[in-house]
């Protein structure tokens, strides 16, 4: 079992332009788990993930709602191999379509009436690609609604990134995105965020500069030399009828022309910091992330009781 991605905000998602940002203005997300939706609006604008390098068979959980002020269609999820888009979950607000890019055109493999206009839906996409007899399915609220067997998914292989497009003037919210090589049906993604000082802060500025819901690059924390660590207390929902499967930390981060060029993301359990592998930074903002499927302090599965006292942060690397 591997989780390849977890996120519902800018970091680890990245915006194509200023038409993509978090939104709390309309109720297109589940407040029991998320503090906002990732709002994509205006033609051709999209949110996209860092490189994920997915296997040929995987599941994607997500929640989505279409904003009804426009007459636009929405590509809620697009699977891309580098810059080539090969599969999408597409909606006009009343019907959802699964489409693959076959022989230079988008071909509908299956569809179902699924209301998304001002209606939040929990969905799970299953893909078995890299085959002329591939399989794709879409589950809604845990129920299989669309299935295409023997579908030509030859081009759906080596998926590197997910994108979420708005194709007109309206837009949509997408949230709680989880990618795994096991069924994601029933899974939820809760967002937690810095809300206090942690045990160490070698970086300039404080948790208050990285805690925002709607991303802003005006305030930030910074590190001028390698191996500086910052840890912050965090808060957010802990749902009562669920149990933890994995913990992820992500940052909207960049480097300068000189100084630290890399980053490690971290969690602090009890009195020990645990860091991810080194993530390379660019001079433009990216969305490095790390997923801990087990508690690094115990090497065992996470316990729900361990979440509230976790600290999250990062270490600058030369």
């Amino acid at each position, binding site marked *: 079992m591997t989780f390849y991605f977890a996120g519902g905000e800018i970091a680890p998602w990245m915006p194509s332009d200023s038409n993509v940002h978090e939104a709390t203005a309309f109720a297109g997300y589940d407040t029991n788990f998320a503090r906002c939706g990732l709002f994509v609006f205006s033609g051709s604008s999209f949110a996209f993930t860092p490189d994920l390098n997915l296997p040929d068979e995987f599941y994607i959980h997500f929640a989505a709602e279409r904003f009804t002020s426009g007459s636009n269609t929405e590509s809620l999820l697009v699977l891309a191999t580098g810059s080539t888009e090969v599969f999408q979950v597409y909606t006009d607000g009343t019907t959802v379509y699964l489409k693959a890019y076959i022989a230079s055109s988008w071909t509908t493999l299956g569809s179902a009436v699924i209301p998304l206009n001002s209606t939040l839906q929990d969905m799970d996409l299953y893909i078995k690609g890299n085959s002329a007899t591939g399989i794709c399915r879409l589950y809604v609220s845990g129920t299989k609604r669309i299935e295409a067997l023997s579908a030509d998914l030859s081009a759906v292989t080596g998926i590197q990134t997910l994108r979420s497009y708005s194709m007109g003037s309206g837009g949509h919210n997408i949230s709680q995105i989880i990618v795994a090589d096991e069924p994601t049906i029933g899974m*939820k993604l809760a967002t937690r965020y810095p809300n206090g000082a942690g045990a160490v802060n070698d970086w300039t500025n404080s948790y208050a500069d990285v805690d925002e819901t709607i991303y802003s690059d005006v*305030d930030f924390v910074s590190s001028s030399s390698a191996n500086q660590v910052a840890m912050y207390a965090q808060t957010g929902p802990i749902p009562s009828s669920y149990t933890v499967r994995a913990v992820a930390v992500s940052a909207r981060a960049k480097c*300068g022309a000189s100084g630290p060029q890399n980053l490690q993301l971290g969690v602090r359990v009890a009195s020990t910091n645990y860091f991810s592998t080194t993530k390379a930074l660019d001079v433009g903002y990216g969305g490095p992330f790390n997923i801990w499927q087990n508690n690094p302090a115990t090497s065992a599965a996470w316990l729900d009781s361990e979440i509230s006292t976790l600290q999250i942060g990062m270490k600058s690397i030369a």
Partner: protein
Amino acid sequence: MTATVDVSKVVGSAVIGPKADTATVSKLVMYIIYVPGSPTGTPANPQAQVYSQIVKV
């Protein structure tokens, strides 16, 4: 006649943003992946959910 220099506008500008020699984080987020199940402190079993049913005959 006295020569003059006229200045009709003066503008000062400040460049604001991260320094060129720093790594910068502008937002940090933690996500928890949850599965249905009582948060009893026992890890979730990822392999199966077992349902029992008593049938009266």
